């Protein structure tokens, strides 16, 4: 069943696969983001209570969900690398960490900007804000551990263990913080079947969300390619590639 994946254990095959994948991802990301953002910022109706300032939601929520989603994908990659010793899984985890950290930071900053007009303050020690901040710390820890090792393979393994410990801790941290203090509004989108927002607002959100997810995919793909090249820089195929580029 998993046989189709086997060729991609080879860095060269994977590199060429990302080469083919990248233009598609980029085009789709550009399409979805431009439709979604224009729709969301210009045409979606303003909120009856929050006015136009709710539109930051179209950036804030995708960034927040991606920040968690990327951590989980990082943990899956780390598990694959620890269990099956896949070196490329390490490379992909390394590629994902800074992107996830950036999305976490975006979620925090847009959240602060949204909180100022709505709650009257930039920062509140509210459960979701706090757990997002802690998620940022976890990301930064993984990145710092990655940079601390000279040997990339060791760095990948160490960061992988930390990621897995973190992923067990994330729900615990989340619930403990939830329990500690809650002010943030409840989930509006993920109530399946009966979202508590009108469809005129939901559709642009779906476009934005897919757009941002694709954007994350593009950036991760680019970083992943660089990781592959950096880790295989002594291989002949990389040399050939470089010579072709230079010629």
């Amino acid at each position: 069943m998993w046989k189709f994946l086997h060729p991609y254990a080879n860095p060269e095959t994977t590199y060429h696969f990302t080469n083919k994948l990248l233009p598609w991802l980029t085009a789709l990301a550009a399409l979805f983001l431009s439709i979604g953002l224009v729709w969301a910022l210009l045409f979606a109706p303003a909120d009856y209570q929050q006015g136009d300032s709710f539109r930051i939601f179209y950036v804030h929520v995708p960034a927040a969900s991606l920040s968690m989603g990327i951590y989980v994908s990082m943990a899956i990659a780390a598990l694959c690398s620890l269990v099956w010793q896949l070196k490329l899984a390490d490379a992909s985890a390394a590629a994902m960490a800074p992107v996830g950290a950036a999305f976490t930071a975006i979620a925090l900053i847009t959240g602060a900007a949204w909180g100022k007009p709505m709650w009257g303050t930039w920062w509140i020690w509210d459960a979701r804000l706090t757990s997002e901040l802690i998620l940022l710390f976890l990301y930064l820890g993984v990145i710092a551990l990655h940079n601390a090792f000279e040997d990339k393979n060791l760095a990948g393994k160490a960061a992988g263990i930390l990621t897995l410990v973190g992923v067990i801790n994330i729900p615990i941290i989340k619930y403990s913080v939830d329990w500690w203090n809650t002010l943030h509004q409840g989930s509006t989108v993920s109530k399946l079947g009966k979202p508590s927002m009108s469809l005129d607002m939901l559709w642009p959100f779906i476009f934005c969300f897919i757009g941002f997810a694709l954007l994350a995919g593009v950036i991760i793909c680019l970083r992943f390619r660089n990781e592959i090249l950096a880790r295989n820089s002594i291989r002949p195929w990389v040399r050939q590639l470089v010579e072709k580029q230079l010629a």
Partner: protein
Amino acid sequence: MTLKAQSQQMTEQPIDKANTDRVKQLSYRRAFMLVLKRDLTIAMRHKDDIINPLLFFVIIITLFPLGIGPEAQTLSRIAPGIIWVAALLATLLSLDRLFKSDHLDGSLEQMLLSPHPIFVLVLAKIFAHWLITGLPLILIAPLLAVLLHLDENSYTALLLTLLLGTPVLSLLGAVGVALTVGIKKGGVLLSLLVLPLYIPVLIFATSAIDTAALGLPYSGQLAIIAALFFGSLTLAPFAVGAAIKVSTN
């Protein structure tokens, strides 16, 4: 004692069949006790390793009234938080010792090579670390609680949360130390890795103490800390073992 323990371990390398059979007689419990005894003996010979984190704990707690002001009401309100944050920092400070010297003199590698699962040996080392740092902290905490005018109802809660919580700190911290033991400047990195993982313990412990001060039942918080304790007791040694294998590569 340490030399003896080490040399015993050296001779117990599985060189031939007869030797492995003899090694098998060393049960997990005996292996656990050996490592525990060895670590405690080493700690007893470097007493300042025990005393310094404790002093650090005491000094941090004395700094807070100086910084915030001596009003008993304010102090008793923030006492649980201060004591617990100081306990986190004191544990963090002492963590470095857990694997560092063993890594430098090579006995950590010997432990990996020994026929016993690294789980047992690591658990013994963590238990020793808790006996050396966590236990003194618990013993001195009531005294500091008096200094901070902690509410009288909260003393039992403080001791119980420390009793269940400090082992979690040692267990989770061991994962961080095992990851950073091979790195030259691991100290600062260690705090970045470990402190976010300590947050749930901090939240539930201080909340239990606060609830106790109001005279309400705090068994729920205590149960969650106990769950954290047993969860990390079963999972953390595996992570530590894997991390040591990476670090001693």
